[in-house]
């Protein structure tokens, strides 16, 4: 059976909505399917990302939550065999439309990765790179202002203010991850995607990053993939539970963790599988 036939015959999955949709929708996704070659990784995901709130994506490994996240700024484009169907809108604009410039999109939807990946440049240049290539700074002092304010927002400035011109790779893991967050916010995005940002960090660094996420919520819409349900409960306002490429349940974080509607959600958050 070909992929297309499978698509037609398959029953459409209905996501359980526990609670109302977010009031202000930043990103609106409908029927998102992702294929890696002939293999389908995501099935009809309908999910709305609220403005200025943290949406956590949870689920067991291989459930498609990272794949979904990478659809939101078209990072999947870099994988040759990957194909995305469905509708993904940022502020009502289809981001997969031919008129959309992917470079511009990624400036609006920033990303922080699982492993801290600072550039092999100085701390200053790491943060300044984005503003430079997007022409955000009119002058040298403008650029310095952007770098300093981004580092301050990322809660890193006090730790590195005296060594801005030393390599970013010389920082500790937690500092590197916050540097990556500073780098992402330096281009002034609207949405920040975080792919398990704390999985390579120790608990203290994790706590700092979580604190930072909570602060960033004031200005940005954040989508975070996490394996830690405690983390999801701590930092997010909405939680989406993925299982086997299906968005099983989505709703208020408090409600999801206290009163999940779907049996599988309940099993997962109580630790019965995954």
């Amino acid at each position: 059976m070909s992929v297309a036939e499978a698509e037609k015959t398959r029953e459409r999955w209905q996501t359980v909505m526990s609670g109302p949709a977010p009031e202000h929708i930043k990103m609106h996704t409908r029927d998102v399917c992702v294929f890696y070659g002939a293999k389908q990784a995501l099935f009809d995901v309908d999910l709305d990302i609220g403005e200025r709130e943290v949406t956590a994506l949870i689920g067991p490994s291989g459930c498609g939550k990272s794949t979904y996240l990478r659809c939101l700024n078209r990072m999947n484009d870099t994988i040759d065999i990957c194909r995305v169907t469905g509708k993904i809108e940022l502020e009502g604009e289809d981001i997969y439309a031919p008129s959309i410039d992917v470079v511009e999109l990624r400036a609006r939807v920033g990303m922080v990765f699982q492993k801290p990946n600072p550039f092999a440049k100085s701390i200053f240049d790491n943060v300044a790179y984005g503003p430079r290539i997007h022409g955000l700074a009119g002058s040298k002092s403008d650029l310095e202002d952007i770098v300093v304010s981004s580092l301050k927002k990322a809660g890193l400035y006090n730790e590195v203010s005296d060594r801005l011109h030393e390599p970013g790779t010389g920082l500790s893991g937690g500092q590197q991850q916050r540097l990556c967050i500073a780098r992402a916010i330096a281009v002034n995005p609207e949405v920040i995607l975080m792919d398990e940002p704390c999985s390579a960090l120790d608990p203290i660094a994790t706590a700092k990053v979580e604190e930072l996420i909570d602060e960033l919520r004031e200005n940005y819409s954040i989508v975070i993939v996490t394996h830690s349900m405690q983390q999801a409960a701590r930092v997010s306002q909405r939680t989406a539970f993925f299982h086997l490429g299906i968005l099983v349940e989505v709703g208020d974080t408090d409600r999801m963790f206290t009163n999940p509607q779907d049996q599988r959600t309940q099993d997962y958050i109580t630790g019965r599988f995954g």
Partner: protein
Amino acid sequence: MTEISASAPVGTDNDATRPKRRDIGIKRRYAAENRFRALGIGAVSIAVLALVFLLISILSNGLSAFRQTFVAFDVTLDAAVLDKAGNRDPAEMAKVTTIGYGNLLKKALAADLEARGVSTEGISSKEIAGLLSKEAPAQLRNRVLADPGLVGQTISFKTYATGRIDGYYKGRVTMESAALDSNVSPEQLTLADRMRGAGMLTVGFNTGFLFGPDASELRPEAAGLGIAILGSAYMMILVLVMSLPLGIAASIYLEEFAPQNRFTDLIEVNINNLAAVPSIVFGLLGLAIFINFAGLPQSAPVVGALVLTLMTLPTIIIATRAALKAVPPSIREAALGIGASKMQAIFHHVLPLAMPGILTGTIIGLAQALGETAPLLLIGMVAFVRDFPAAPPEGFFDPAAALPVQVYNWTQRADPAFVERASGAIIVLLVFLFLMNLIAIVLRRQFERRW
């Protein structure tokens, strides 16, 4: 499992409760490790020994090429011989051939020996003149034609002693061997000793070896590497300029942009195969395409460089691709994630990180090209070239030699004096390689310091 651990008393070492261990031969494992280590040390020692032997043999043979025996004496430039018309017209004076100058030198040397009180008893005047290099008349003639005002004056003239006399002072020729040699007699050697005592014969640094052109089979003392060094340098510059951008561009395209399909697989296999093609095949290709088809001149550094570029490209492409592949994908993702285009990600972040690897590959490729002989033979760089190529860019199209071809050339010549010349040329070649590696190391440090 929980039951077993619960029943075992905590804190006591009870063998009975532990599962029996199979004998896995710890001693044998350590012995194997030690054997392997000894093997490794042996292999390294053999390699080091081979290198030491190579260096010793080349240095002991070749270092003497940098020293040379010179003869200095006064020559009166007789106007009656050199300028019969008497008007100092170089065109007129050029009618006097080296034979005329040779006779002049013969007389001048004999006269100077007498003037200095060096006894020439029992030695024919032909034998006395035989001490001088066959290059001497030509040297004097060039000097006079360049400055006709010298005619009529007495000048001090310094020229090479012939290869046999030179060999006498380097231990290659002895009294016994001279007695059997038709080219030199023991009497000549004793005369040379007397001349040395009188200060007419000196041994000094041989600048002609490094800067002079090649000389014919009969005058090894005058053979120099100047044109070969220049030709090799021209070729290396051209190879670098052509192969580095081409190689990097091809690698970046294949590694970062090319779609993964059968066609790119085919290209990849062929590039790898190209690296294994015997170099003489590239010479044939160069002869067919660059000389016969494109009509480029023979023996020209530009043709040599084109052929060597073709040869070097696979090495550079393979090394560059490996270097690009070694850059962690997270760096690309990081750049793409903040909105860099693919090209920005590659040129701002991936390429600088890959640069040390690319440079190493390039230098390895260039070193190979520098030492390559076979393809150059086929495109005519084996020719005997006496005229220096011009300055670039015109010089790239002038006939020139190359260092390894010069070595090959000299090892084929009969006169034993060329053995030392060939070894000396190898030393120069090795110095070239050493300098290139040094540059590579310095550049690599420079790039690595940028993290």
